[in-house]
């Protein structure tokens, strides 16, 4: 039986949870460590440091929502749990950005896929980006540590039909497919992971690390946006934050200051560079916000003869790495194939149509299947990623030009995805592209896809994985933090999230973030305890 109302019980038992929206006056707090962000990086860091006996304050810009709020309602979930009410996009609007903004960060809304970092990626980081101690053997115990803590196991229930079609198609083509490891415990196989797990089965930081830290005496402040870190000499002195109202948007006028011995930034690949840029931390080589990666995603949708019900069942259970390393590690980008869940709002917002064309697709919604390709950006020479800058109002924004090699990989991926869907019996297939109709045979689709314009906004593109922007490495001229997430210039500042990746991964990032944060936090705990 699920353990319902985890936070209600915890707060009754004395957990120190502060809703900054309710502050009636400005406050100043002190701690050993202030951690910004409660996602895979910040949550894990809080767990480790609080367990080590340090006084920890977690700061979260999003609000605390938990199982009593998770009613499988798309409107509520998207407006409360996602960045910019699920309308975040790159600066030219060509790539829609799905990213969490709530206690637990993206781990509260992700689809639970949990992969170790591919070995090729770790070797590439070591050989090309000067990252120390990141070989697969060194990291193996940390992956194992988190796999055990978060119950990460290969999904042993039958995949839903949406995922099964990827398996069938790959099987018929003679291509690789495998079953996805998921971070769930007693999962009900409902299919609503993206709206907040209603049964607390998903082992995101919302139900694991953050409660663990709270149980060890940590403080959680939510609805508090970090404006800047004030620093002097080589040390950060204090954090300054602005309270947001219960709508998550409106500024209440109340402010907080937090003084600490150490500060950990874990606000994501867009948020963390944003905080460091606003804080004007030393950046002599202009590295902050550079080389931000997205695993840019394109998609096809298929109309199947059978009922697919893409809204029910574990959203991601099958993947294919057949094309992930197709041109070698540094050749033109390869991609991972996965399946997205589809619910009415998600589908209606993704399909670039209206009127009759939209109604026709809505009519076939229960028979709709979709495949996505996640491009491995940042490995080849023309894939330099994007740049985070600040808007006039100091909010972060990502500029991400799509390079020629990415466009070419998108076309390759549309072809292979359509081929898989027809092999699995699709009646019609369409790339999610403004100029693509439904094609009724592989031959038609192959011809049509070869002629599709490769242009921003005509192709509908997405990302659920934001990485880089505060790269790690031993050379300060090429990175923001060292190989353990410690800032090159400020001695009491660390970065513990996906922003430290020097490239994308080629796999869903949560387990890499968990493992690196766990390792780097144990090292940090040692440092802080030895000079207590």
């Amino acid at each position, binding site marked *: 039986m699920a353990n319902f109302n985890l936070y209600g019980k915890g707060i009754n038992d004395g957990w120190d949870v502060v809703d900054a929206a309710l502050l009636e006056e400005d406050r100043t707090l002190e701690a050993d460590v202030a951690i910004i962000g409660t996602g895979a990086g910040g949550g894990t860091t809080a767990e480790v440091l609080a367990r080590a006996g340090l006084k920890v304050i977690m700061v979260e810009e999003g609000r605390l929502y938990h199982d*009593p709020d998770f009613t499988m309602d798309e409107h509520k979930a998207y407006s409360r749990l996602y960045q910019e009410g699920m309308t975040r996009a790159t600066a030219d609007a060509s790539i829609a950005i799905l990213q969490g903004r709530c206690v637990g960060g993206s781990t509260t809304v992700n689809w639970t896929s949990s992969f170790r970092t591919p070995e090729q990626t770790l070797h590439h980081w070591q050989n090309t980006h000067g990252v120390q101690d990141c070989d697969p053997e060194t990291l193996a115990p940390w992956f194992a540590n988190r796999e055990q803590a978060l119950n990460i196991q290969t999904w042993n229930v039958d995949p839903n039909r949406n995922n099964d079609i990827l398996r069938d198609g790959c099987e018929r083509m003679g291509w690789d497919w495998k079953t996805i490891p998921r971070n769930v415990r007693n999962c009900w196989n409902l299919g609503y992971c993206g709206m907040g797990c209603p049964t607390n089965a998903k082992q995101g930081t919302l139900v694991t690390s953050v409660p663990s830290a709270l149980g060890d005496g940590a403080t959680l402040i939510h609805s508090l946006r970090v404006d800047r870190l004030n620093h002097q000499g080589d040390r950060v002195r204090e954090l300054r934050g602005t309270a947001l109202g219960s709508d998550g948007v409106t500024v209440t006028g109340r402010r907080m200051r937090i003084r600490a011995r150490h500060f950990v930034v874990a606000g994501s690949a867009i948020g963390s560079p944003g905080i460091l840029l606003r804080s004007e931390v030393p950046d002599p080589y202009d590295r902050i916000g550079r080389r931000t990666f997205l695993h840019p995603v394109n998609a096809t949708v298929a109309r199947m003869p059978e009922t697919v019900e893409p809204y029910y069942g574990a959203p991601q259970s099958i993947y294919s790495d057949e094309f992930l390393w197709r041109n070698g590690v540094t050749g033109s980008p390869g991609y991972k194939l996965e399946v997205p869940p589809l619910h009415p709002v998600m589908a209606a917002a993704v399909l670039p149509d209206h009127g009759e064309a939209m109604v026709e697709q809505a009519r076939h919604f*229960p028979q709709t299947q979709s495949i996505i390709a996640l491009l491995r950006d940042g490995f080849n020479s023309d894939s330099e990623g994007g740049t985070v800058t600040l808007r006039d109002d100091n909010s972060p*924004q990502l500029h991400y030009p799509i390079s020629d090699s990415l466009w070419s990989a998108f076309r390759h991926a549309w072809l292979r995805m359509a081929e898989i869907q027809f092999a699995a019996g699709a009646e019609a297939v369409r790339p999610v592209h403004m100029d693509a109709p439904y094609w009724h045979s592989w031959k038609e689709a192959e011809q049509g896809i070869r002629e599709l314009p490769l242009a921003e906004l005509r192709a509908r593109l997405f990302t659920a994985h934001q990485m880089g922007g505060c790269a790690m490495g031993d050379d300060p001229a090429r990175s923001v933090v060292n190989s353990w997430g410690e800032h090159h210039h400020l001695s009491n500042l660390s970065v513990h999230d996906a922003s430290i990746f020097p490239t994308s991964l080629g796999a869903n990032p949560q387990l890499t973030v968990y493992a690196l944060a766990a390792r780097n936090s144990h090292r940090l705990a040692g440092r802080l305890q030895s000079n207590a």
Partner: protein
Amino acid sequence: MDSSSPDPDRRQFLRLGFQGGVAAGGALVLAGLSGCSARPTHDPMIPATTADPDRHWRFMTEEDRVVMAALLPAIVGPGMPREAEARNSALSETLVAMDEAFHAMGPPNQRQFRQLFDLLESSITRLTLARVSSYWPNVSGEQAEAFLQRWRGSMFNIFNQAYLGLIQVSNAAWYGQPAHWEQMGYPGPPAYTYDALPQMQKASA
């Protein structure tokens, strides 16, 4: 792309608006001389549903609601009820859902949508950029559809972006309502969860 600019979209929009106005020749000058305000003058026959004075609208102005009331029937298409009362009530609920979505987007996105609505509402840019010849309350279904198709098919990214912005918010607001789930054949969350999950018992109560 100039990646150092803080807000290229806005600049692009303004530049395009300016060029569009110039390309329209005398229209801009004439409008200026005749004292035509940037804000439209309203037809007194605004549908009641678009002007609910009792609701606290968070983002959408009366003008915005008039524009969307003209566009939603074309965006929703055959799914929109034909009977007047059902149609007004569906429009009204969809506008409320859109207003909530606009609020949740936060200030940077709101600024972009504000520019878009301003462009649609100013007579000059309505005529020159949207190329919609009637005031919005008088725009027919055919005119709305032709406008949407023009922006969808435009070779200018900025119009594609504006089209996508309009239809995504509209489609999400429409299909997110449980009353419209059946138009997608979506039965909702599994029936047994309404009994098995405490929060669902509360939500359905």
